[in-house]
């Protein structure tokens, strides 16, 4: 059975508990996308007009470092959110994203969602709470990564 976009969005843990009317609004900004292995999803510095929910596959969030090449900072996989630069000015990607495996995702039009959030602050608040949770998790994980926990004891 083919699942509707609304169905896919409502089942995603990120949107758990979101009212049906908002699910419809959010799904109205979404589309299914598919990427081959090694494909660039977005490049550092480009306009951040979209964000993604990974449904299947693996994506590297990377940074180009002179003399070192593209360096993977983090990978995101099934169930993860990719990208939040669309939320804040100047709406440019801070990092790049490239698939490590064939990847299926839901792509959301960031401009479309920003407009809807501006028009309905309750929706905006709901989304912002959810993104804040994701950002907090990523910050915690980054702090742990910086600790170099598995290195030899000092």
């Amino acid at each position, binding site marked *: 059975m083919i699942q509707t976009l609304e169905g896919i969005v409502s089942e995603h843990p990120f949107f758990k508990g979101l009212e049906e009317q908002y699910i419809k609004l959010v799904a109205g900004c979404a589309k299914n996308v598919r990427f081959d292995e090694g494909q660039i999803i977005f490049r550092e510095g480009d306009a951040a007009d979209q964000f993604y929910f990974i449904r299947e596959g693996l994506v590297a969030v990377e940074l180009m470092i002179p003399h070192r*090449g593209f360096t993977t900072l983090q990978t995101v996989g099934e169930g993860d959110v990719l990208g939040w630069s669309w939320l804040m000015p100047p709406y440019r990607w801070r990092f790049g994203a490239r698939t490590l495996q064939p990847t299926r995702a839901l792509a959301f039009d960031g401009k479309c969602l920003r407009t809807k959030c501006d028009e309905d602050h309750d929706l905006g608040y709901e989304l912002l709470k959810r993104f804040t949770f994701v950002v907090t998790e990523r910050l915690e994980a980054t702090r742990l990564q910086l600790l170099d926990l*598995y290195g*030899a004891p000092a």
Partner: protein
Amino acid sequence: MAPQLENSIAARTGADPMVPEIYCIQRLRHETDDTFTIELATVNGNGGFSFLPGQFNMIYVFGVGEVPISISSDPQNVKTFEHTTRIVGAVTRSMGHLKKGDFLGVRGPYGTHWPVEQAEGRDVIIVTGGIGLAPLRPALYYLMAHREKYHKIVLLYGARTPEDILYRRELERWRSKFDLEIQVTVDRGTRGWRGNVGVVTTMIGRSPFDSTNAVAMACGPEVMMRFAVMEFQRRGLSTQDIFLSMERNMKCAIGFCGHCQYGPAFICKDGPVFRFNRIEPIFGKAEI
């Protein structure tokens, strides 16, 4: 307790726990830049060594000193046993220079074990980082040998870099059996690494286990375990179903000296594997 496990406990009953026995190195294998595995057997090749997954030995390098190291081999192989350790001090550095045919003193096995019997009929989620995979390797061997007794088995393993991944070939072999879900992640991806990059605990949230019927085992740096516990609890695991292997400065290994006191418990005697609800009030407290 399963009969095999009871037998292994009985095997060493009666030995003086403070007197090391001499064992002979059969093999020394470098795992990564700063870790190695030694395989030991009795001097004359007779007899054996039984232990439970998660237990440790006190290893004595003659003239240098004694250190506690978890046993990392298959508990069903009683002819030889292995220890994997990182070079962190004088004893492990000396140990790393030994070769086949050299001798070591061994006291043990000591301590509590992973709840492999309690996990029967349930999903098993194992979260480990760095050298923490070594104490869980015997549990993995046990689970794989009794695969039919368990539902899903998930191993989440974090290493510093791809070059620091322990037991790489074994992990690949286990993964190829398709009845063990293995996810490896590294803190820093290096050129050519096409796997996960990120902290191992972030993988718990999307890991395919049934939190209403699962047992969790974790071993690694204590900070990693603190975050692992938070993620287990967020998934709905009860504190009774979470088991951690704790580490402190163990000396006598039999609860006499007090060096490894952890609140009301001694890690050497009451641990190293603790059911989380037993240590929850003191876990992560800076003063303990």
